[in-house]
């Protein structure tokens, strides 16, 4: 069964992560992109937070995206650059190794 994997509990990301096909990794970041292995790992997108209101509308704050979702596609290896910090002023890029195995 695929998992939704939260990384908020860690003060810093490890340099390597092991996932299973179908897993979705939730990173607190403003952006990111798959550097190698895009057939192994897919970036679903960078997202802003949003809150559903009783009227059915969604309220979002002013600011850059704060969450990045990555999905493991099939067994293999990938590297992903995760962009953290202020995207307008001093973004920091961290490289993450991802192993996808059954």
């Amino acid at each position, binding site marked *: 069964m695929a998992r939704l994997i939260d990384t908020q509990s860690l003060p810093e990301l490890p340099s390597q992560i092991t996932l299973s096909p179908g897993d979705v990794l939730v990173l607190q970041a403003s952006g990111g992109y798959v550097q190698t292995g895009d057939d192994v790992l897919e970036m679903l997108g960078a997202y802003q937070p949003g809150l559903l209101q009783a009227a059915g509308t969604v309220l979002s704050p002013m600011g850059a995206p*704060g969450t990045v979702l990555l999905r493991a596609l099939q067994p293999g290896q990938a590297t992903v650059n995760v962009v953290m910090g202020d995207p307008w002023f001093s*973004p920091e890029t961290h490289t993450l190794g991802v192993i996808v195995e059954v």
Partner: protein
Amino acid sequence: MKEKNDHERQLREALLKIEGVLSCITGKEGPLAASPKEEPSADEGLPPEQLGCSIKSVPPRLAKLAAETARRVNPVNGPVLGRLAELKAPTDFHPQFLTIVVSKYWGPSPRRLTVSFMEATPADLRARIVSHMNAWAKTTCISFVETTGVGTVRIARGAGGYWSYLGTDITLIPKNRPTMNLQGFTMNTPESEFRRVVRHETGHTLGFPHEHMRKELVSRIDPQKAYLYFLKTQGWDKATVDAQVLTPLNDQSIMGTPADQTSIMCYQLPGSITKDGKPITGGVDINTTDYAFAGKIYPKPLLGLTPEPALADHLELAVDTTDWDEAEDVPDAERDATIEATLLPSHGPTDRYPELAGTALANHA
């Protein structure tokens, strides 16, 4: 002697007008009105219920022009972020509709917003953050004070970057959630970052959107360069770049000063994505235009007079949209002259902010 009499007559007329407004609200006649009148009132003979304050609205065909004029006189009168479009019957409104229902501004009355922190935060850091939030209070009637309870403004320092909900929207956020995020701020964070980030996010809390999304600045950006740049540096797709960088604010939502790339509300954008190769410099602190404009829409009370926050609640909003012949419409030039004539020379921006004398600011206010 004649001058003195004229002065007294003008003073009495002014006081009568003020008393008239107050009597509309309280339902009581004031002592000035009770004294003998020099001229009969046009309202004499009408039943009391027809003497109350009713608000006349311009004919519907002039509603857009009226809104534009009101916004030119005071930017607070403009609707914010197009929420009017969400309403089912946008033409069915009374004259106060736009500012009361649509705006995310807090209004001109002095306010103190309480501030609390989501995580355990050292006292010195809490005080430092709140002091930077209060930088806006230099020219505005809005201030911030820390509370040990649950604040109106709730600050988190966890992951997710820097963000804040806009203006009065913060009141819609559940109490267990932050309204502002200042990722990783500690006492070791440089002072320059407190100025740049805390003051910027507090600007959002006051209702100010991003300055770099003004159409004058957006038009300087080459979309293809921007898509490529943010794809390479952030991995953002086209839709994200459109939303973050390339979609100008609706004219109806902007704040009234000319686009200002050194505003604290403007992000930094590199010259590699602009058409002219020059960067959009972005603001690193609240600048003089920010201060002056914020002071204009959140004015500090003058002469000890405090605006009455609940005034609108007491008004009877009977709307009369009686039309007249289109040929009688006031020409543009005449309308501009009338607006200009209402300005009091003793209340210009450089009178309230003498340090701004000689700057371009006088043209903005």
